[in-house]
C-alpha cells in the first residue's frame, strides 16, 4: 500500500474530517427518518446512508456510513461505481441518480440507491448516497417477495442508473415511470423525495467541509482515512495465524423444491491478507435465493466488521480482503436468476458460514451477526378507506440476536447485521388492519450457551380486515448457529388461519393466501445461537432466566445442567455440580 503521510496537525484535522463525514451520514439518516412517509423508513429504518468519494475519476471509495444495514451500504459501492461509469462525462451540479437493479450493485429490486455527486473541485467528487428498501416496486407480488419467482422480472421493476434530478429539476417522465411501477405511488414518491432531500443535505455539508478545510486538505484527509483503515486491518490480520479455515452452512430450501442448499467458505489467512473463497457453494438455484455479487460481498464484510469492531469502516477496510466468487453459483449468479430473498437467505447463511470459519481463528469475537430468515408480506384494500396497503411487520420476524462472549442475546436483531428498529406495535395497529394478541418470549427456546441466544419470540395477531399473505420462511431446520460450543437457535415457522378448519403451518412458503376478518396469524422467530458451553453458564444466570420464565426447571437441568429447586426458587448447587459432572442429557439446540 502507498500510505498518505500527514503531519501531526494534519492528522488531527483528518480525524476531525473523518468524524465530520460520519456526522454527515447521521444527518442524512435523520433527514430520511424525519421526512419519509412509509413505516418501512420512518419506523423500521430499513435504509442506510453513506458518503463516497472519487478522486481524479478513479475508483469510487466508501468513506463513511451511518450505523445502518451493512448489506445496503457496502453493496452501494458497486452501484455508485456503475452510475459513475454510465455517465462518465455527463454529470452536472444538482444531478441526482437512481439505480436499483440487483445486477448493478443492488441486492434485490426494492432496495433503491439514490446518489448525489458533489464535485468540490475538478477531479474531487464526493457522493452522498442513501439506499433504502421501498415498500413495493411492482412486479407480480405486492412487496416483491415472490416465492414463485423463477427469474428477476418476476420480482419487480428494474431500474438501471437513471438521472432523476437534472441540474436541480426533477426529470418528470422518469419519475412518472418509476411511480407507475409501484402499487403505492404516493408513499413511494414521499420516500424517494426524502432520500433525494437527504442527499441534498449531505451535499451542503460536504461543501461546508470543503470551504472550512480547503479542498486539498479534504482530499489528502480522505486518502489518509482510507489508508488508515487498511493499515489497521492489515495489522490485525497479521496477528491471526496463517492457514485455511473452512465451513459449510446450509440453507433450508430454495423455494423451488431443493433442500439443504450448501454455502461453502474457505478463509485463507496469509500474512496481512485474507482470501474468502466460496468454492463448493451450490450452483445457481431456480428459486429466489440467489445472491448477486454486491449482496454476497456485503455479507462477507458484515461478518468481518464484526470481528474488527474498532477499525473505521470504509473502502480501506476492504483492500486486504479478496472474495472469490465462482461464476454461476448461488453467490454469484448470472442474470436473470431470481434474487429477491437474498438479503435474508442466503445472506444469513453466508454470514454465519464466514463466522463459523473465523470461529477457528478468533472464537472470542464471533457470534450471530445475521438477521433472521423468516418474513411475510400482507396486502389488501382497506374496507374503511379503500386505500391499498402493503405491510412488512418486522415484529413477527425479529429475534436473531445470539449470545456473544460476555453477553446474552438480546431482544431484537443481531446488531451487526442491522440497525433496523422494531416497530412500535401501537403504530402498526393504527396503520394496518390487525390487533396484536401476543408478542413475547417463549420458554425453553433460547439457544443454550455460556451466553445464551435470545429466546424465540411468539407472535400472534388478529385481523380486522381481509387481506392476503405471502410468507417466505427459512431457518426452520438449519437455524441460526451457535458458536464456541453454544447451541443453535430455535428456528422459524408460521401458522396462518390459526384455529380454523383450514389452518396451515408454514415452514417454507405460502403465496397470496387469503386471510379473513377475525383470522389469526402466529409466528415463531427463532433466536440466534448461543456462545460457549452451556454447562459453563453461571448457575445464577440460569436462575434469573428461570425466574423470568425463559427457561423451565427441566430445561435448566437439560440444557445447562443447573438444578433448580422450584419451591425455594434457588439453585441446588450440589445437585448442579453432580448434573454437570455427569454431562446430563445435553441438548444441542433449543426449541
Amino acid at each position, binding site marked *: 500500500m502507498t500510505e498518505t503521510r500527514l503531519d501531526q496537525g494534519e492528522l488531527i484535522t483528518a480525524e476531525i474530517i473523518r468524524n465530520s463525514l460520519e456526522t454527515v451520514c447521521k444527518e442524512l439518516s435523520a433527514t430520511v427518518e424525519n421526512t419519509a412517509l412509509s413505516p418501512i423508513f420512518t419506523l423500521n429504518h430499513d435504509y442506510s446512508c453513506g458518503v463516497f468519494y472519487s478522486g481524479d475519476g478513479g475508483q469510487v471509495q466508501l468513506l463513511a456510513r451511518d450505523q445502518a444495514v451493512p448489506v445496503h451500504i457496502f453493496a452501494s459501492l458497486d452501484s455508485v461505481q456503475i452510475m459513475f461509469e454510465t455517465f462518465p462525462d455527463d454529470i452536472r451540479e444538482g444531478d441526482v441518480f437512481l439505480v436499483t437493479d440487483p445486477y448493478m450493485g443492488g441486492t434485490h429490486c426494492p432496495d433503491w440507491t439514490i446518489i448525489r455527486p458533489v464535485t468540490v473541485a475538478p477531479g474531487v467528487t464526493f457522493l452522498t448516497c442513501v439506499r433504502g428498501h421501498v415498500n413495493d416496486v411492482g*412486479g*407480480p407480488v405486492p412487496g416483491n417477495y415472490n416465492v414463485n419467482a423463477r427469474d428477476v422480472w418476476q420480482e419487480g421493476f428494474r431500474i438501471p442508473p437513471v438521472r432523476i434530478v437534472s441540474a436541480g429539476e426533477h426529470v418528470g417522465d422518469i419519475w412518472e415511470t418509476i411511480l407507475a411501477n409501484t402499487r403505492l405511488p404516493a408513499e413511494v414518491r414521499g420516500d424517494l423525495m426524502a432520500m433525494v432531500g437527504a442527499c441534498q443535505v449531505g451535499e451542503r455539508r460536504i461543501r461546508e467541509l470543503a470551504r472550512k478545510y480547503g479542498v486539498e486538505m479534504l482530499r489528502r484527509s480522505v486518502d489518509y482515512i482510507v489508508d488508515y483503515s487498511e493499515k489497521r486491518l492489515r495489522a490485525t490480520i497479521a496477528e491471526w495465524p496463517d492457514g485455511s479455515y473452512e465451513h459449510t452452512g446450509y440453507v433450508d430450501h430454495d423455494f423451488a423444491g431443493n433442500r439443504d442448499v450448501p454455502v461453502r467458505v474457505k478463509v485463507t489467512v496469509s500474512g496481512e491478507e485474507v482470501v474468502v473463497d466460496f468454492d463448493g457453494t451450490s450452483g445457481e438455484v431456480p428459486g429466489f435465493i440467489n445472491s448477486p455479487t454486491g449482496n454476497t460481498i456485503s455479507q462477507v464484510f458484515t461478518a468481518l466488521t464484526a470481528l474488527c469492531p474498532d477499525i473505521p469502516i470504509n473502502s480501506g477496510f476492504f483492500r486486504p480482503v479478496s472474495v472469490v466468487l465462482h461464476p454461476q453459483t448461488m453467490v454469484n449468479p448470472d442474470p436473470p436468476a431470481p434474487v429477491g430473498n437474498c438479503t435474508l437467505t442466503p445472506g444469513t447463511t453466508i454470514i454465519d458460514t464466514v463466522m463459523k470459519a473465523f470461529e477457528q481463528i478468533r472464537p472470542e469475537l464471533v457470534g450471530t451477526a445475521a438477521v433472521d430468515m423468516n418474513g411475510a408480506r400482507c396486502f389488501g384494500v382497506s374496507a374503511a378507506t379503500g386505500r391499498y396497503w402493503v405491510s412488512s411487520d418486522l415484529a413477527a420476524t425479529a429475534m436473531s440476536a445470539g449470545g456473544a462472549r460476555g453477553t446474552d442475546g438480546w431482544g431484537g436483531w443481531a446488531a451487526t447485521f442491522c440497525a433496523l428498529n422494531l416497530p412500535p406495535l401501537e403504530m402498526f395497529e393504527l396503520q394496518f388492519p390487525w390487533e396484536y394478541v401476543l408478542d413475547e418470549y417463549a420458554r425453553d427456546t433460547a439457544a443454550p450457551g455460556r451466553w445464551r441466544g435470545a429466546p424465540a419470540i411468539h407472535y400472534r395477531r388478529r385481523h380486522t380486515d381481509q387481506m392476503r399473505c405471502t410468507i417466505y420462511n427459512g431457518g426452520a431446520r438449519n437455524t441460526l448457529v451457535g458458536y464456541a460450543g453454544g447451541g443453535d437457535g430455535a428456528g422459524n415457522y408460521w401458522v396462518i388461519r390459526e384455529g380454523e378448519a383450514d389452518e396451515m403451518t408454514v415452514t417454507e412458503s405460502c403465496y397470496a393466501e387469503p386471510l379473513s376478518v377475525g383470522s389469526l396469524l402466529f409466528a415463531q422467530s427463532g433466536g440466534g445461537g448461543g456462545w460457549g458451553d452451556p454447562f459453563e453458564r453461571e448457575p445464577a444466570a440460569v436462575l434469573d432466566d428461570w425466574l423470568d420464565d425463559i427457561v423451565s426447571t427441566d430445561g435448566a437441568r437439560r440444557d445447562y445442567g443447573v438444578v433448580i429447586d422450584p419451591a425455594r426458587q434457588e439453585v441446588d448447587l450440589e445437585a448442579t455440580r453432580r448434573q454437570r459432572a455427569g454431562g446430563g442429557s445435553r441438548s444441542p439446540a433449543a426449541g
Partner: protein
Amino acid sequence: MRPAFAAAVAQIREACPWDPDPVVAVADGEGRLLSASDGRGVASLESVARFVRRSFAADWGPGSAAVSNDPFVGAADICEMTLVSAVPDGLALARVRVPDLGGFDFGGVAPGALDVWGEGARFPALRIAIDAGQRAEGRALLRLNSRTPRLLDRALDALGEAAACGAEVLGERSALESERLEAAAAASAALGALRPGTYAAEVEIDVPGQPPGPAVRAALTVGEEIELSFSESDPAVERPLNSTAPLTTDCSLAEIESGVAGFRAAPGALEAISVDAGAGTIAGAELPATTSLARFLTEGAIRAAVQDVLRQAGGAERTTTWWEAEGSQAFAQLIDPADLRLRAERVAWLVELEQGDDDD
C-alpha cells in the same frame, strides 16, 4: 391505405415478424388523430397521443419521441407498444406488439397475475429521443425490463423509422383534415339511418376451457345523439379479462364498421357517436386491473354485444360473430394460455429470434 403508411407498415412487419398487424398514424400537435393505416386503434391511438402531449407540454418538439405501453393510457395490454414522435406540423404514431416486458409470464400473458404489475412493466409515457438523439436512459429502462431486450430494440428502431413517414403524410394536412371531416359526416349519416330507440344486449365473456366470464352489457341509444354505453356491464374482475376504455371504444368502432353500411372506423368517426365504457366495469376497467386476455376474449364479448344492439337497431343481419370468424383462431395461435404447446412454440421461436440477434 396511403402509400407512405403502407411502406411504414411493411417496414415494421419485416423487423417484427411476430406481429402481423402493426399500425401507423398521424395526429395534429395536440394529439387529435388525422389519419391511420387502418381502423383498428383509432380511439386508443388518439388517447396515447393526447396523453404524451400532456406529459411533455413544455419540452416537446421535432426530434422528440416517447413510448407508451400502459393499458390505462391506451394500450390493449402491456405488450402493445406505441411510439409517438414529434414531426413538423404534428405527431407521427406507430404501434407494434413487443415480445415481452417482464411480469409473471413471458409475453405479458399472466393468468395468475393479481394486478397489472404482474403482467409487466408500465411505461405511461417515457421519452426515448430528445432533439433527434437517442435518450440512452429511456432505452436502458425499457431494455432492462424485457426478457427480449434485443427484439425490443428492433421494435423500437422499426417504430422510429416508420414514424418518419409521418412528416410526409402530414405534408398533406388540408387533405387529411378534409378526410377527417368526411369520415365524421359519413359516420353520422350511417348511424343516422339506424332506427331511433334504445337497444340493449348482454354477452358473457367466453373463456375457453373455463366457465363463462362476467357479462358485457351494451346499450345503444339512437336519437338526436347516438350513444353506446357499457356502464351496466359487470364490474372488473380479478382475472385478466378487463378491457380499458380505449380498447372498448376501438372494439366498438370496429364492430360498427362491420355492421353499419357506410360507417368507417376512421379518425373523425368518434364525432358521430359517444362511447361510455363504464368506469370500473369489465369494459372500462381502471388501475390496477389485469388486462392481458381482454384483447380477443373480452373484445369478443364487446363486439358480440355491439353486433346485437346494431342488429336490433336495423344494422346488418350477420350469422357469425367476430369471435367465431376471426378472434378465436387468432387467440389460439397467439396467446391462449390453455394451449401450452402453441404457447411454448411461440415463446421458443421468440427466444430463438432474440438469441439470433445476440449472435449478430
